[in-house]
C-alpha cells in the first residue's frame, strides 16, 4: 500500500502525517508513507486544499486532518 500525505508543512499537515503513521503502525500492515511538500506533485493529483491523504493513487480526503477512525477504515 502506498500512502501519500500532502501538505507544504503547516502544523495541520504535520498532524496528518503523524496520524497516518500511527495508524499504519497500529494496523501492522506493510505500507509506505510519503510526505509530499512539492506543489507541482500535489497539483498532479488535483489536490486543492491541504492536508490531503492519497492512498494507492486515490484521494481519500482533502482540506482536513483525517481522524484515526477514518484511517482505520481506509487501511482495512
Amino acid at each position: 500500500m502506498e500512502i501519500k500525505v500532502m501538505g507544504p508543512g503547516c502544523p495541520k499537515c504535520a498532524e496528518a502525517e503523524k496520524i497516518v503513521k500511527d495508524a499504519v503502525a497500529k494496523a501492522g500492515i506493510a505500507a509506505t508513507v510519503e510526505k509530499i511538500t512539492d506543489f507541482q506533485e500535489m497539483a498532479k493529483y488535483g489536490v486543492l486544499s491541504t492536508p490531503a491523504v492519497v492512498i494507492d493513487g486515490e484521494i481519500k480526503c482533502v482540506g482536513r486532518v483525517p481522524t484515526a477512525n477514518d484511517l482505520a477504515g481506509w487501511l482495512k
Partner: protein
Amino acid sequence: MVEINNCCTVSPDKPLAPKTEVPQRPNRLKNIMIGLGGLVVWFVAYKQLLPFSKYFTFEILGLSSASHLGQAIQFFVYDTPKVMMLLTLVVFGVGIIRTFFTPERTRKILAGKRESVGNVFAALLGIVTPFCSCSAVPLFIGFVTAGVPLGVTFSFLISAPMVNEIALVLLYGLLGWKIAALYLVTGLLVAIVAGWTIGRLGMENHIEDWVREMRTNVDDVPDECHSWRERVQMGLAAVKDIVGKVWIYVVAGIGVGAAIHGYVPEGFMVSIMGKGAWWSVPAAVLVGIPMYSNAAGIVPVIHALLEKGAALGTVLAFMMSVIALSLPETVILRKVLKPRLIATFVGVVGCGILLVGYLFNLLI
C-alpha cells in the same frame, strides 16, 4: 482494500452523546430541541454579562465606577466573556455552513462564470469557504488550471483571508455592528475590484509556465457527503480548533485594551493616526504588509487605537493590510507567479486599501 467510497466518513473524536447513535428519526427532533435550548441559555447568559460585570467590579470588589482601575476591570470582565461567547456561537454556525462549501465545490461554481459576475461570486464564496493560508498555492493552481479566470481567482484569494467570521465577530463585539458591516462591505469591494482589475490587465503569461501547461478536471476530487450529525460534529470540531487557538489573543488583546481604556488619555493617537495626518493612511498600509497577524490578534489593537483618537479609515486600512497582504503569503505565491504579477497583486490590493482608508477618513 477499501472499495471506492466517495464519502470521507467523518468520525468524531468524541460522539455527541452515545444515545444518539442508532435510531435516527425520533432523535432528530430531540437534537433540534437541545440545540434550541442551548441557544436560549446562551442568549440569557449573554444578556446578563453587562449587569454582572458592573455588579462584580463595583459591588463585590467595591471599586469606584469613576476610578481608572474600576473602569479597566469592568471593561475586561464584560468584554472577555462577551467576545468568547460570540466567537463560539459564530464559529460553530460558520463551521456548519462550511461543510457545504469545500474549495472543490467553490471551484466548480466559479469555473463556469464570466469575469465580472465571477469576481462577485468569488469574493462572497471567500467568506464561507474554509481556507488556510498554506493552501494558497495548491488552491491557486487548482483554480487556474480548471479554467477559473485569473482575476476571479485573485478575488477569492484576497477575500478568503481578509473577510472572515473571526474578524467580523471581533469587530462586532468590540466596536459595534456598524464598523463590522463597514468592514464586510469594503473588504468585499476591495476583493472584487482588485480581482477584476488584475483580470483586465491580462497577465496570464506571468503565471509560471509549468502551471499554465497543466490542466485539471473539476471532477477529479470526489465530493464528500455528510449527514447532519456529521456537520454538527464538524461545527463543534471547528469551535474546539479555532476558539482553542484564538482565545489567548482575545484575552491578551482585551487586557491591553482594558489598560488603554482605563489609563491612556483620550486623543493620544490623534496626532499620529488622526484625520489631519494625510500620510498616515499610506504609512499604515506599508507598515501592515510585513506584519503578519490574524484577525484575532489585530482587532483588539485596532480597538485601542480607535478609542484614543485614531481615524477610522486609517485603522481599517491598517487592519486590511496586515491581514490581506502578508509577506509570507507573497513569498509562497512566488512559486506559481512571476515577480511582475506578484508586484501587480500587491500594488492593486494596496491601492484598493488606500482608497478605503481615504474614503472613510473623508466621509466619517
